[in-house]
């Protein structure tokens, strides 16, 4: 479990730290305070410097370099925005650190001029003119010093991640890896791929329980076989309700159902890892929030998953109080942190304070 994190030079943060983290951690703060960036930093940390995780973050944010030649083979990803000040030069650097038990584990991301030895390591075709710089990824968690070539436009070609276009939507699914859910949630193909590993296992019950909060009449859920649909944003699952003979597609059931399904599937696949959820209240009515937190909290304990989520919603924050105790149990601690632009530390709230704020209607956001 990550106990504290420190961010230096990543995106909008010059320096930032957050301490005394727990099993379930909710982040609040104004628009552009950096909540999503904190989730991204945790994602990069838990991915142990895997370049693929950078690719995924940039893809999600849509940070491609616009291409003059529209039919060009591969898009390039603009990495300057990862660096505080959007500044890309030799020596530009950002660092992420996590404290688990005692020793701090750090990953550094630094722009450098590649040596000739470096060039041998880079496995992308291209002259040194095309890739004048490299991104070094190194640190205590990174298995081996990783080098990624950077073009003169400050971009990283997708091919550098060894990701042919057709594989861009490939399911990235390893147990123990970090799952990152954003407002769009995972796409149907990814969700089905993960569901396939859950179906007929004990975790299937967890998923059913989750969606039954929204509709207690649900008896079963199944995925379509892959030929039945195309890469739609909502689709691929059918639900059997009590009293109705024919199953109905999950798309008929609204955003909240999709979100709950995505959350339940994602946490089931995060055993011993981390679940990151941006804007966790999306699509969920205030009346189901308390149940959602209970479900996630219990699953987190059962599956040893550390959860980080962000929200703007006061209902979401207040219902978090329902899973708070007295904060004595560090292993199962619940935390709330407010991120304020320009402040180097988050403003923490203990479990007692979260409950007090909900009771007395004191604003924590």
């Amino acid at each position, binding site marked *: 479990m990550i106990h504290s994190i420190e961010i230096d030079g990543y995106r909008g943060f010059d320096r930032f730290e957050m301490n005394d983290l727990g099993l379930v951690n909710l982040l609040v703060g104004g628009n552009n305070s950096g909540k999503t960036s904190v989730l991204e930093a945790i994602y990069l940390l838990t991915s142990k410097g895997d370049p693929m995780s950078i690719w995924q973050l940039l893809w999600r944010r849509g940070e491609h370099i616009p291409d003059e030649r529209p039919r060009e083979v591969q898009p390039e990803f603009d990495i300057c925005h990862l660096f505080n000040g959007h500044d890309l030069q030799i020596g530009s650097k950002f660092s992420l650190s996590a404290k688990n038990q005692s020793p701090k584990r750090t990953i550094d991301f630094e722009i450098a001029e590649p040596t000739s030895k470096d060039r041998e390591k880079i496995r992308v075709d291209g002259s040194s003119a095309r890739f004048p710089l490299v991104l070094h990824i190194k640190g205590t968690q990174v298995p081996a010093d990783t080098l990624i070539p950077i073009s003169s436009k400050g971009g990283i070609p997708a091919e550098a991640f060894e990701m042919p276009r057709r594989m861009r939507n490939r399911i990235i699914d390893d147990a123990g890896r970090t799952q990152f859910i954003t407002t769009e949630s995972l796409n149907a193909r990814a969700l089905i791929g993960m569901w396939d590993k859950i179906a007929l296992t004990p975790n299937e019950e967890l998923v059913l329980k989750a969606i039954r909060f929204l509709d207690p009449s649900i008896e079963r859920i199944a995925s379509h076989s892959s030929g039945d649909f195309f890469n739609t944003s909502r689709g691929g699952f059918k639900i059997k309700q009590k009293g109705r003979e024919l199953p109905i597609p999950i798309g008929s059931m609204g955003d909240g159902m999709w979100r709950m399904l995505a959350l339940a599937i994602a946490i089931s696949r995060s055993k011993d890892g981390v679940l990151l959820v941006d804007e966790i209240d999306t699509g969920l009515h205030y009346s189901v929030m308390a149940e959602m937190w209970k479900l996630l909290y219990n699953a987190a304990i059962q599956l040893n998953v550390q959860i980080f989520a962000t929200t703007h919603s006061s209902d979401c924050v207040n219902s978090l109080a329902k899973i708070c105790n007295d904060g004595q149990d560090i292993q199962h601690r619940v935390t709330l942190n*407010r991120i*304020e632009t320009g402040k180097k530390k988050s*403003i923490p*709230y*203990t479990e*007692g*304070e979260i*409950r*007090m*704020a909900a009771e*007395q209607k*004191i*604003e*924590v*956001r």
Partner: protein
Amino acid sequence: MSRTPNKLLVEGHDDLFSVVGLMRQYVNWPKDKDDAPVFIQVGYGADNILKKEFISTSIKESNTKTLGVMLDADLDANSRFTSFRNLCLDYFPAMPKQLPANGLILDNADGKRIGLWIMPDNISKGAIELFLKFLVPDTGVPSWQHAIKSVAEAKGKGATYRDCHVDKANLYSWLAWQDEPGQNPGHALTRKVLDAKAPSAAPFVKWFLELYSLQPSINLQS
């Protein structure tokens, strides 16, 4: 949702009414709660307010820049202050060891301000009723004397009030005989049955205005 960065925590609803009734004689206090110069929150007793998390979450509230607290001394103003001080030290390390006689106003490095007034006068034991007693106008003194006498006599006839609450019994007995009977102290102040401009109110009024950086108004809407 309150728009003001000013907040006052009080023990009970009568405290709330009393503060509004008093202060609206000095500053504009619109009927709509959202437009009030200070948002007053009822904390339901000193024991609740002095729970660790109440003060800390109130200080941390991002849209509250000035937090005032008004408590009754009850038996010991000093021990109330000590409890309060211990809760605030993390956020206001410069808090003095003694409560100033004119009330506490303190700023910290984060741009937050905290204030404390312990009724009646930051020194004596007692409660807000003792403060309000001194707002009885001269014309009310004879009936006030009568109230004190009656309250004492009632004890002999089986009245159950506790001695530590005699000030409250006196005040509410006296209010029962005024126009209109049974109004709370806030109404009494608004209707000028209690005198908001009495000299003994001045230290509290001064503390309040200074804490919240309010200018006394010359033309007040009634």
